[in-house]
């Protein structure tokens, strides 16, 4: 529990430093919520979507030999979604409005990601020691056995419930 509250403190600090931040979420790479500060969004759904996006990102980075995952940035017409690596077992997802200073978002997001990575490593180290092995790329038993164009199977696959519809009315990919 101490880890979750420390991570939540970090999310609150981040919100103070980046005023245009509308939400933040720390989750494990397999889609479980560690802490969230995202009013008006469904954290479990966002964590699951983050994990799904990470699965693609890992594979894309691997296929193009870009090295380990660092961050993902998505820009919509009304704002940004950014995901930063937080150690090998966790990620930090930030929601920001369209006026945000992306340079600052990157600086603060990377710093907080590293900090959360340390907290997670210190707090969950012994019991979640297998966490790095849960990364989809390393978890593959045999990449050649999987048909081309299919994603590695990961658990949990589905969010506990569907994310709430956003103001922008986006569609959930199926």
């Amino acid at each position, binding site marked *: 529990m101490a880890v979750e509250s420390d991570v939540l403190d970090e999310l609150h600090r981040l919100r103070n430093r980046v005023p245009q931040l509308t939400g933040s979420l720390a989750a494990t790479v397999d889609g479980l919520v560690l802490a969230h500060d995202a009013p008006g969004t469904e954290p479990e759904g966002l964590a699951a979507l983050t994990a799904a996006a990470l699965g693609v990102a890992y594979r894309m980075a691997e296929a193009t030999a870009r090295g380990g995952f660092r961050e993902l940035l998505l820009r919509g017409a009304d704002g940004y979604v950014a995901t930063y690596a937080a150690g090998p077992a966790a990620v930090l997802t930030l929601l920001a409005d369209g006026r945000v*200073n*992306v*340079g*600052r*978002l*990157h*600086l603060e997001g990377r710093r907080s990601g590293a900090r959360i990575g340390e907290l997670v490593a210190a707090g969950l180290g012994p019991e979640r020691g297998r966490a790095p092995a849960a990364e989809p790329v390393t978890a593959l038993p045999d990449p050649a056995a999987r048909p081309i164009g299919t994603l590695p199977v990961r658990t949990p696959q589905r969010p506990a419930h569907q994310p709430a519809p956003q103001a922008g009315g986006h569609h959930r990919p199926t």
Partner: protein
Amino acid sequence: MANLETSLKECLGSIDGATAVALVDYTSGMALGTLGGGKDFNLEVAAAGNTDVVRSKLRTMEHLGLKDEIEDILITLNTQYHMIRLLKGRGGNGLFLYLVLDASRANLAMARHQLRRIEGDLEV
């Protein structure tokens, strides 16, 4: 007309006391190009931070009802000058040049004059 790399090189090469320069997009806070600075002066941090300076000044002018434009901003430290020069026209909207000068070696009037000339020649 000069391209970005040439202009950044010219800033460091022809302006006395110049130690670092960046072209920054203040709609995003990210640098389009940087030169100099080195390990002890992170130009990405400077780009993000000075974006807030420019945005804040523009907002203040809007609140004051000033229908005018920023030409440049000078920040004087004990040992450095920081100069911010907004680009005009030719797709340069939303960009500024950020120049760091060593106060003991720089000639402020000359630096401002040269930066204006380089900015005028810069084609983004």
